[in-house]
Every structure is written in C-alpha cells, then in structure tokens.
C-alpha cells in the first residue's frame, strides 16, 4: 500500500496536469473559432475559383496539347505526396491519421512499382515519416513560426511543388490533409492536385468571352489553382488540428478528474485505515496495562 504522502503528491500532480489540459482545451477552442472563421472566409474564393476552373477545364482540357498541369505528363510513374500535418502534438489522432493515410497510399504505390517522393509540411509528419521513407523525403516546409496561415504560405508551398513539376521531378501530385467535419470528426483526405481535377459546386451555365484566350487564362490560373487548393487544405488542417486538440484535451481533463476522484478515495481509505490501526494499537496497549 502506497504511503499517504506519496498519494498526496500524486493527487497534486494529477491536479496540475488537469489544470494544464484544461487550459490547453480553452486555448484550442479559442483558436478553433478563429481557424473556423478563416476557413469560412476562404470558402467563397475557393468555390468561385473552382467553378471557373471547372468550366475552363471542360472546354480546353478535352483537346490534346492542353497545359500539362491539367492533362498530366502522359505518365504516372513518379508520385509526389505532399503530407500536411501540424507542428505540434497533443491533438489526439490528428497527425497520425494523416500520416497513416499517406503511408497506406505510399505503400500501395510502391507495391505497384511506382516511384514515390514525399514532401512534408509540418514537423509532425516529417518526424513520423522520416524513418520509414527516409530516402523518399525530398523537402520539408516548416510552418513553425507561422501563427496564422496566410495565402502567402500556400503560394510558397505551391511554388515549391510547381518548380519540381517543371523540372520533371514527378508526374502526379497528391496532397494529404485533414478535412474539418466537426470538433469530434476530422476526416483525413487525399486530393490530387496535379494533374488537376476540378469539381464544381456551382452550376455553370453561361458561355463566356475570354480575355486573353481561353488557353492563356488557363495557363495563368492553373498554378494559382494549385495554390488555392493547398491554401484550402491548410485552412482545413488548421481548423482540424484545433478541433482535435480541443476534444483530446477535453478527454484528458475528464480522465484527470476521474483519476483524482479515485486517488482521493484511496487516500481517504488509507488515512482511515491508518487511524484505525493506530487506535487498535493504543487500545490494545491500554488493555495490556
């Protein structure tokens, strides 16, 4: 049986852990609100953009000789997997779920005899992939110092990916991120960005004039489309991370509370047992006299 002061110390330490997790939960919920607002604010842009791209792609993409970003290089030998995770842990299964999805995809591609390259965004993804796929990691983008993801961060990542595409380093690019469903539901998602596939959420019925030409606009907009998709993914990721952290910390706080209750009962019992013991000793001592 642990002695009383040990129990007391443990209770104190679990209590301070609970304070920390509670604080983290509250911080996460404040950040989540901001991240959700940002995701919401970015939605009209992405929707309009995708709608226009879908229209353009439908009219130009069918013809041969379209831009490579849209039609592909004609091969699908080398795949670039862009794994976007958070910079920090303590957020439940958020990071590991994304990594798991990416790992399954990579293994599948390798089994098919394809070449796989991995670009990681966010420290956690790199940490968990670097052992297994060490020779496939081509680059890493650090977002540690970024307080709030902006479009500039997305453009930088997109530029990195596009320059690799231009030099023929890969044929197909996919991004891995977590889509924000709700606080308790984040869906790890795989999305192909090169060659681009557009799904329009808005019905496009109008026939437009184009200035410059359709092809010109498409060539101008395709690189931006990659940036837009990455930006959307970053925003979704940010919201997911905070959501996951919030529910993970909520659980941790609750568990800590349960543990404190259990330890307190144990503490009280042992204290009572000790008192009873002492009483017995005193009484039997008195009787012996």
């Amino acid at each position, binding site marked *: 049986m642990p002695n009383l002061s040990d129990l007391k110390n443990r209770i104190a330490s679990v209590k301070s852990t609970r304070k920390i997790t509670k604080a983290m939960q509250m911080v996460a919920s404040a950040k989540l609100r901001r991240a959700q607002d940002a995701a919401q*604010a970015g939605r009209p842009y992405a929707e309009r953009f995708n709608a226009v791209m879908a229209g353009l792609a439908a009219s130009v993409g069918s013809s041969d000789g379209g831009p490579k970003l849209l039609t592909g290089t004609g091969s699908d030998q080398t795949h670039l997997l862009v794994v976007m995770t958070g910079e920090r842990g303590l957020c439940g299964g958020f990071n590991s779920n994304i990594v798991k999805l990416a790992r399954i995809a990579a293994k599948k591609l390798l089994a098919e005899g394809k070449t796989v390259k991995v670009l990681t965004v966010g420290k956690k993804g790199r940490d968990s992939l670097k052992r297994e796929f060490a020779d496939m990691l081509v680059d890493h983008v650090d977002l540690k110092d970024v307080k709030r993801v902006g479009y500039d961060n997305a453009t930088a990542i997109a530029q990195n990916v596009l320059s690799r595409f231009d030099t023929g380093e890969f044929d197909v690019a996919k991004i891995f991120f977590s889509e924000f469903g709700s606080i308790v539901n984040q869906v790890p998602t795989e999305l192909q960005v090169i060659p681009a596939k557009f799904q329009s959420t808005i019905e496009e019925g109008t026939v*437009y004039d184009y200035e410059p030409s359709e092809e010109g606009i498409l060539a101008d907009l395709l690189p*931006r489309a990659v940036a837009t998709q990455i930006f959307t993914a970053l925003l979704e990721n940010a919201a997911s991370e905070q959501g996951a952290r919030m529910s993970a910390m909520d659980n941790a706080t609750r568990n800590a509370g349960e543990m404190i209750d259990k330890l307190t009962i144990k503490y009280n019992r042992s204290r009572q047992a000790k008192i009873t013991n002492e009483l017995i000793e005193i009484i039997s001592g008195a009787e012996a006299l």
Partner: protein
Amino acid sequence: MADTMNFDLVSPERSLASFAATEVQIPGSEGDMTAMLNHAPILTTLRPGVLSVKAPDGLSEYVVTGGFAEVTPEGVTVIAERAMVKSDVTQEDMDGIVVGAKVALDGANEATQDAATKTHADVMALAAALGLSAA
C-alpha cells in the same frame, strides 16, 4: 437612380466587398474595361492595378495584384489573389508587391520572361498611380 448590379470582391483570405454597383472599372491584363449592367459575359485575368467601383453612394477603389474577374449580365465578381482598399495601401505593402514582382522577373526563364516583365511594369505603373515609391 441608375440600375445596379452585384459587385463581389473576394481574396483567398476573406471576402472583401459585396454590394450593389453601377459601374466597375477592371484592370484587365489586356487593358482596362468598364463593366455595367447587362454586360456580355466575359472572363478576364487581371494585372496589378486599381479597381474602381462606382456605387449609388459613392466611389470605392481597391488595389488588386492579379487574379481574374468574371463579368455576367447581372454582376461582376473579382477574384483577386491579393486585394486591399486603396486608401489602406501603405508604402510597406507596396514594397512587398514590388519585391515580389522583381523576384519573379529575376527568376524568369524564357517562357515566363514576357509575363514577368509586363507584371513588373504594371507594378511600377501602379506605384506611380498611388504616389508611392517603387524602389
């Protein structure tokens, strides 16, 4: 009162403006154009420049640095990569834009040379129009 159409200005990070306008002057990459109600549908890319919107209650101006505009008979949607209210643009913002254009120009290869040169020139013109230095 003049007939109005919907005007929307969205940037990746937020929706900047959405109101009824009578006249929108768009800095298209092939030249400026002014869209009014019942304009034929057109899709144009933007050059860095000033977007001015006339509404019944006054004129508002924005600085955009690329993206595209979608004109339909019912309205104009400007989807800008970066957009700011013109009066809010500081020298610091302008410096950022100029540096961006310079980097693109310096790093341009044969295929992108023309576009980068044009963008750089547009940025210079924009800086002059705003009365800010483009050094």
